[in-house]
C-alpha cells in the first residue's frame, strides 16, 4: 500500500479557492495536512481559477477524487478521459486517486451517481473496469462506498458487494464514514458492524461530511451542512478498526467562513489524537 500524508484535510472547491488563498499560507499549512481536488472539474480549463488551483497543488500535498469515470457502468470506459486523468494526476503530483463505486452514465452521462445493482454480474463488471483503469494509470486507485437511496435489482448485501469488488479488482477503499452512516439509516443496518466487516488493510483514506435529514428513516448526502455528532462518533469508531487514516472533510454547498471549516478539520485531528493516546 502506498504511503499517504497523515492527518486531516479539506476538499478544494471553486467556491473555496479565494478564501483558501487569502488564508496565510503558513497558517493553512498548519491546519491542513493535505487537500483534495476533483479532476473532472478542472481538466481542460484555464484562466485565473485554474492558476489558483496550481498555486495550491504546488504548495500542499493533494489527493484527487473523481466523479465521471462511471466505474460501475456499462458504457465503454472513456479511454481519452483516462489519459487526461493520468496527465492531471502527474501534473498536480497527486498522492492518491479515488473514484466512486457507482455509475454516472448509461447511454450518455447523467452527471450524478446512480446505485449499482448489488449483483454478481455487477461485481465482475466493476472489478474489470477498475482493473483496466489501474492498468492505464499505472497505479492502484481507491473506490468510495457511495450513499444510495434505493438498491435496485439487489441480490447481494451492500457489504458483500463492496468487499467482493475490492477483492476482485485488487484496489483500495476510500471509506466515506458519512455515507456509511447515511446508508445505515436509509437501509436499516448497523454502521459499526458494516465498518468492522471492511478490509482495514485496504482503507487508503476516509471522507467525512454533513448530510440532510429528510425523515427519520431517510437522510440525503448533501455535503451542505456541518458534520453531526453520530458521524463524529462513527469516525472515532472507524479509527479503532482501521487505525488512524488520513481523513478529509467534504463541503460542497452553503460554505461557512473558512475558519469554521478549518475548525471542523481540527476536530478530525482531535479525534485522531484521542485515538493515538488510546492506543499508546
Amino acid at each position, binding site marked *: 500500500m502506498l504511503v499517504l500524508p497523515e492527518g486531516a484535510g479539506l476538499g478544494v472547491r471553486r467556491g473555496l479557492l479565494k478564501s483558501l488563498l487569502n488564508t496565510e499560507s503558513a497558517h493553512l499549512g498548519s491546519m491542513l495536512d493535505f487537500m483534495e481536488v476533483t479532476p473532472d472539474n478542472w481538466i*481542460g480549463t484555464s484562466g485565473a481559477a485554474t492558476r489558483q488551483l496550481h498555486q495550491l497543488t504546488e504548495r500542499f500535498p493533494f489527493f484527487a477524487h473523481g466523479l*465521471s469515470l462511471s466505474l460501475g*457502468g456499462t458504457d465503454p470506459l472513456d479511454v481519452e478521459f483516462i489519459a487526461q486523468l493520468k496527465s492531471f494526476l502527474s501534473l498536480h503530483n497527486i498522492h492518491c486517486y479515488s473514484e466512486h463505486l457507482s455509475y454516472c452514465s*448509461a447511454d450518455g452521462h447523467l*452527471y*450524478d451517481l*446512480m446505485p449499482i445493482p448489488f449483483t454478481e454480474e455487477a461485481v465482475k463488471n466493476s472489478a474489470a473496469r477498475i482493473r483496466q483503469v489501474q492498468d492505464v494509470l499505472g497505479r492502484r486507485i481507491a473506490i468510495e462506498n457511495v450513499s444510495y437511496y434505493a438498491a*435496485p435489482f439487489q441480490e447481494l448485501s451492500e457489504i458483500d458487494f463492496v468487499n467482493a469488488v475490492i477483492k476482485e479488482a485488487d484496489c483500495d477503499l476510500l471509506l466515506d464514514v458519512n455515507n456509511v452512516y447515511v446508508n445505515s439509516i436509509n437501509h436499516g443496518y448497523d454502521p459499526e458492524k458494516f465498518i468492522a466487516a471492511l478490509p482495514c488493510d485496504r482503507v487508503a483514506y476516509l471522507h467525512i461530511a454533513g448530510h440532510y435529514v429528510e425523515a427519520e428513516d*431517510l437522510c*440525503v448526502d448533501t455535503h451542505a451542512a456541518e458534520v453531526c455528532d453520530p458521524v463524529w462518533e462513527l469516525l472515532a469508531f472507524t479509527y479503532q478498526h482501521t487505525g488512524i487514516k488520513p481523513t478529509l472533510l467534504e463541503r460542497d454547498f452553503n460554505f461557512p467562513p473558512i475558519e469554521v471549516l478549518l475548525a471542523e478539520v481540527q476536530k478530525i485531528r482531535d479525534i485522531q489524537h484521542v485515538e493515538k493516546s488510546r492506543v499508546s
Partner: protein
Amino acid sequence: MSVEKPCNLREQQLLFANHLRNPRDFAAPAGIEERRMRIYRHLFFGNISNVLATTFPVIRSIMNEEQWEALVRDFYATHRCETPLFPYIAGELAEYLLHERDSDADYPFLGELAWYEWSEIALRHSDETMPTCWPMVFRFPVHRIGVGYLPQQAPATATYLLMYRRCDEQIKFMESSAATFRLLQLLDDKTLPTLQDVCEQLAVEMQHQDILSLQTMVQDTLQQLLQAGVINNS
C-alpha cells in the same frame, strides 16, 4: 408503459437511468419506494439545472421558471451527453439547442444565443495563446439579446462579432463587419502564408480592383485590432 424484467446489468442500468432522464415516459424500476426514487429525480434534475443556469445566464434570464424547466427536461431526456468534464457540459446544451431541438415555441434565436454563451466559456478555457480572437457570425444580434430585446425575426443583415480573450484573460466582444470577419478567417488559413496572399484572396472575393487601397485598409484594420488587444502581432 409496461416494463419487462431486465435480465442483465446493462438493461437494469438503462432502466434506472432512463427514468431519471425522462420520468414521464419511462417508469421507475419495479419495487422501489416512490419517496426514494423522488430523491434521485430531485438530485439529478437539480444538479443539471444548476450547472446549466450558471453557464447560460442570458438564456436563463429570458425564460420563466416553467420554460426553463421544460427546456432542461427536454435536454436531459433527449440529448446524449458525451463529455465527462463538468466545465464542458455547457457545450452539450449548445449542441442540443443548435442541432437537435425542434420546438416552435422557442425564440428563433435560441440556438445561436446558446452557441454565443457557450463560446464565451470555451474561449476562456481555450489553450490558444493570448490574446485569442474568434470571429463569429450570427443571424441575430445575439450580444444584445436580453429581457429588453427578444427579436422574433432576424434582421436583414447578419451580425458579425469578434469574441476575444485579452492578455489579462478578460473575455470581450466587438461588433465587426463581413469584411473583417473574412479577413480574420483568411489570416488563419495556412494556405495563405503572407499578408500579401491574404489581401489578394480578399480582393478576389470582394471584387476589389484596387489592391493597394485594399492593403492599406487591411493594415489599418489590423492596426486597430492590435491596439484594442483583439489580436496579437503574430
